[in-house]
């Protein structure tokens, strides 16, 4: 009431006031029409960045491929386009069997982790929330460690035992947390505390298994620190259905995540069913994370840093955050993977180390930029 004119009565009908009102109406109309709309510019910039990352990811590696030829080869694979790339047969095999599957896997893993992180932060209204918090990482770690140290055989179809064990472990971890959380009255705080307790318990078992089987420590650590390495497309096909289905579920619930920003009680009074939304989103985000960590190991930080960078650059609405986190996460992990295999070539650095090493300064830069605007 301090600056918006009279609340009641006192109508100013002068021409100047009419002009101001007309301008205000137009601005208000624009603000309402643009409410929650994803800007085509933001989408375009993010897609362009992903395209650049994909081309660089395909071109850069121990056997360098000419970037222009890679672009031509990628264009040649599009329908209705025929163009001579200039790549040799050997280079084409490297591109098809090594680089592109690796880039695709990195993009899918990054997209999964970033979307899941954003979704968890939405349902728990906590900027530090991620599937890790409900025991997904601890469960996956225990599952993979059990397979490696005990020599369990839980392979399925073309997939060996480690990813299957990690997937089962992640789902089990979150399921235990959610069951314990129900005992505490279904509150968000209760669920998070149940997650912390579950993660601690599963980590204790994992540590015990590691200590008892020190000869496999190297293999366990190689998985724990994460890696995007694949030969062929099998892991991509494993992960793709989860990204499509769970990603679609998160995408259609982005409006509900915005309603949840006012808290569960206010959201209920507005007509939302917070528990239903929370359950659906947590299940979808957890499945997505479990599928991602099963093929990549534990790549931390992506689920926190990418959504926050998107927030700083493009705003807080989940209608923007979910789709742009998917694109941003894919871009980020493809670029980080290039760094992981280039910095100490021909050796590869664990990608989890590189995400934190490059991600933290980038995040600081984004924070600094936001504070200036």
């Amino acid at each position, binding site marked *: 009431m*301090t600056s918006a004119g009279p609340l009641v009565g006192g109508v100013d009908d002068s021409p100047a006031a009419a002009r101001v*009102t007309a301008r205000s109406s137009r601005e*208000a109309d624009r603000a309402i029409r643009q409410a929650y709309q994803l800007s085509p510019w933001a989408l375009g910039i993010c897609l362009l960045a992903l395209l650049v990352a994909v081309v660089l990811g395909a071109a850069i590696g121990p056997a360098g491929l000419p970037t222009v030829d890679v672009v031509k080869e990628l264009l040649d694979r599009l329908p209705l386009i025929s163009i001579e790339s200039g790549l040799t047969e050997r280079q084409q095999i490297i591109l098809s069997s090594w680089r592109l599957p690796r880039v695709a896997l990195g993009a899918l893993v990054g997209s999964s982790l970033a979307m899941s992180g954003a979704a968890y932060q939405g349902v728990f209204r906590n900027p530090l929330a991620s599937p890790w918090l409900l025991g997904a990482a601890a469960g996956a770690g225990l599952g993979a460690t059990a397979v490696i140290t005990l020599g369990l055989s839980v392979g399925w179809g073309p997939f060996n035992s480690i990813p299957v064990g990690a997937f089962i472990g992640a789902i089990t971890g979150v399921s235990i947390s959610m069951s314990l959380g129900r005992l505490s009255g279904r509150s968000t705080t209760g669920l998070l505390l149940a997650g912390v307790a579950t993660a601690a318990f599963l980590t204790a078992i994992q540590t015990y298994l590691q200590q008892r089987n020190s000869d496999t420590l190297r293999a366990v650590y190689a998985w724990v620190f994460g890696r995007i390495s694949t030969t062929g497309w099998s892991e991509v096909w494993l992960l793709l259905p989860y990204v499509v289905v769970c990603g679609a579920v998160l995408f259609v619930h982005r409006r509900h995540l915005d*309603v949840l920003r006012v808290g569960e009680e206010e959201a209920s009074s507005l007509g*939302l069913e917070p528990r239903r939304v929370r359950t659906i989103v947590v299940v979808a985000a957890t499945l997505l994370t479990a599928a991602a960590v099963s093929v990549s190991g534990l790549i931390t930080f992506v689920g926190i840093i990418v959504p926050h960078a998107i927030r700083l650059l493009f705003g807080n609405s989940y209608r923007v955050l979910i789709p742009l986190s998917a694109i941003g996460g894919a871009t980020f992990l493809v670029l980080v993977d290039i760094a992981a295999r280039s910095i100490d070539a021909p050796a590869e650095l664990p990608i989890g180390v590189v995400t934190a090493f490059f991600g933290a300064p980038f995040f600081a830069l984004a924070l600094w930029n936001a504070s200036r605007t």
Partner: protein
Amino acid sequence: MTRVTVTDVSVSYRDRVAVEGVSLDVEQGHWIGLVGPNGAGKSTLLRAVAGLVDYSGEVTFDGVAVPNAERSKTVALLPQNPVMPTGMTVGEYVLLGRTAHLSWLAAETDHDRAMVGESIERLDLLDFAGRPVDELSGGEAQRVALARALAQESSVLLLDEPTSALDIGHELAVLELVNEIRCERMLTVVAAMHNLTAAGRIADHVLVMANGATEAIGTPAEVLTSEVLGPVFGADISVLDAPDGTRVIVPLRSGHSI
């Protein structure tokens, strides 16, 4: 345009009874003020009417018992301190009021945006539409929250001490504004009010609560008396006649009189 009938409603939190056997009947377009000391059960009663807590007894709207999950089309709640999410614009915030009118997977239509525009215009928020809600003053924030409630297109408005954080000037302005809108749209208003004088001036009826139960119910002249209010608030209370014909209710220091 809805008649609200509350019959023998009780609410318990674990072992504690927050509301016990409260009944009231609010005619459509009327304003009932809920008054009482802190912890009297006013907010809990509002939450029961809004369907946000489990309760025993019955709450009906025009004689129909609407399921809790479907009440938001009939009832809008204006909280005491509405959550103002960081970076959400006024337009986006008011658009949340359309949630109850959207099916599970649908997006807002032009009609929803038009309703938001109408609410924003009615509350003189045109200049604010693109501003983040977390940068508004207390009075502006309450006005924006009221716009969200109007966008909900509900016929019953529940107010949970909406002016407790405002100075007396803004308090009066907000209450007058709600009253104007009530008259325009024939809204039925149930409001928990901490300011007894304001309740006496604006409400058609007043329900006095203490320890979760009804102490008195009637017109302001019938129940806002020192005999009723003194024991309920545990203080000496004086009721004075104001120059405009309404009543001013003030607590007295022990041993003092006006």
